[in-house]
């Protein structure tokens, strides 16, 4: 088991009180697993990705533990997290453009990053060139400034950079969302390739695009309002979802080939609840077509089939 997250609660501190962005999230991530993390904006998927590597000033760790390869990850302690960052847990941010320093050549930037983490650049120089070639980049990019590269090239540079020390866990936060479709495909395929070659042990791929997740992820976890709604193998989530939220979300996605003439798709009425004072019980109950009295109790996340977890009173039996 690479990663085990147990009842994680992370709140944002605001002047009006705590925003319950993550409220009791528990899941496991196996060795070699690519997990897609999907959900609407504000469901806590980015917060979960960030919590695993660095809590910013407004975020407060309230409860829960994280274990990586059997070691406890002290996310509340910023200094104690340092040995984990980059070595064990690494991140590919959404906008590679803003992740690269515009005033440094890429090679120099990578050298500085490695030294800051206590690694001699020469010891990985060979590997760095090999990996750049693997993702289809000329090692000459090391002598260029970020402005000279296209968006897809920058995203690949950041990916190579983030995985250079073979981290156990890679968090990719909307890593391909800003790219064109053809570039998106090649970047997504290189990510899978990196996993296959063992450069990263497992990966959490945060995205709002479920059809992209289906192309590359082994499992998909759907979040809603700070909690997990459903987690299952990717094909199960797409073809046989059980949680009503997942069903409605999949039903709202237009595909290549569907038109308004064939069938009109329906959106999900209503909006997600505010997390400043989250509702009691199931958080989806106000938008759920099959909600009933029992939904005023919080539904537990239970394994309804092997590897298929859902948090809904209606799916447990």
């Amino acid at each position, binding site marked *: 088991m690479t990663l085990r997250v147990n009842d994680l609660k992370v709140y944002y501190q605001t002047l009006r009180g705590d925003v319950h962005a993550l409220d009791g999230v528990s899941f496991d991530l196996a060795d070699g697993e690519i997990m897609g993390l999907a959900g609407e904006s504000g469901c806590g998927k980015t917060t979960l990705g960030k919590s695993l590597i660095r809590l910013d000033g407004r975020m407060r760790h309230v409860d829960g533990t994280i274990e990586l390869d059997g070691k406890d990850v002290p996310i509340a302690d910023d200094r104690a997290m340092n040995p984990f960052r980059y070595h064990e847990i690494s991140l590919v941010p959404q906008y590679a453009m803003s992740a690269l320093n515009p005033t440094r050549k890429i090679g120099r930037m990578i050298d500085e990053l490695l030294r800051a983490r206590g690694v001699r650049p020469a010891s990985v120089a060979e590997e760095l060139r090999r990996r750049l070639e693997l993702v289809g980049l000329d090692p000459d990019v090391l002598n260029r400034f970020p402005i000279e590269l296209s968006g897809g090239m920058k995203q690949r540079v950041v990916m190579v950079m983030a995985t250079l020390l073979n981290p156990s866990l890679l968090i990719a936060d909307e890593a391909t969302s800003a790219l064109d*479709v*053809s570039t998106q495909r090649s970047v997504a395929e290189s990510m899978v390739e990196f996993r296959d070659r063992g450069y990263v042990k497992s990966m959490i791929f945060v995205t709002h695009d479920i059809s992209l997740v289906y192309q590359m992820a082994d499992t998909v976890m759907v979040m809603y309002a700070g909690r997990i709604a459903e987690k299952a193998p990717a094909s199960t989530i797409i073809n046989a979802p059980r949680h009503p939220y997942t069903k409605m979300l999949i039903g709202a996605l237009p595909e290549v080939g569907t*038109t308004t003439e064939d069938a009109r798709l329906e959106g999900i009425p209503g909006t997600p609840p505010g997390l400043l004072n989250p509702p009691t019980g199931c958080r989806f109950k106000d938008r759920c077509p099959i909600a009933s009295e029992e939904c005023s109790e919080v539904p537990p996340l239970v394994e309804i089939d092997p590897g298929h977890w859902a948090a809904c009173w209606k799916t447990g039996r």
Partner: protein
Amino acid sequence: MLELSHVHKVYRVGAFGGAKLRAVRDVNLTVKPGEVVSLIGESGSGKSTIGKMVLGLTRISSGSIRFEGADVSRIRGFSAKKEYYRRVQGVFQDPFSSFNPIFKADRVFSMIRSSYFPEMSDADWRDKVLAAIGTVRLDPENVLNKYPHQLSGGQLQRLLIARALLLDIKLLVADEIISMLDASTRIDVLNLLGDLKERGLGILFVTHDLSLGNYVSDRSVILRKGAIAEMGPTRRVFENPLHPYSRHLLSCVPQLHRTWAEVDAELAANPPEDVELPTVADGDDSAPLVEVEKGHFVGIDQN
């Protein structure tokens, strides 16, 4: 209704404007009433530039844009432009930056009233606003008298469409209007475009997402480097793409029920027939189209 013929747009780039960048190259297309035309392309394909030129936000370099017979690409003067915007309106990508956060969101309606309907009575105006809000399927209780931060992106985007509808418009330019919305609300805005189409509105739908372009549109135009690569009825373009570039694009779209590997295997098993693409001489900046089947055109191959 809207007719673009041989439209070019050349930007001057570089330190002293010496170099030229051809953003739009010899584009011909029409939008009829009650028709949704999708302009699909990757970044840098010129799709947004075409939208901006139709809205008069940027000038065309050569060619003409005609709206209901009149050339609108060279409209000058405040009152002539104002008349044009009574019939043609745009909605853009980011609904949050279209509103001033200091004022309530429905201020966009009163601004329309003060510039276009100053003589209308309060009661008539209120009815008109409520009708427009009803058309975009919003509940007036939930959206009126609210500040922009109290509304969701989908609600704001639909308010902007309602604002455009107050003007009895004939053509709506929708530039990436759903890229910033969540999957669950996206489809509501797309369905709304379908409703408006049935009411006879022409819509120019600019998008980079092929599956969204496909869902709502009657005709699709695939752009590459400013020129039309393929244009035709949406169903034909997606079922039988003729241009190598459109085939490549379609094979890269993440689909919900087929993986990339399956798509590739299928393409390899039944290789599509090649069509002869039109060619142009070096230095010629036109982009001719060839009609392969009825209403289905392919354009030049650019490398």
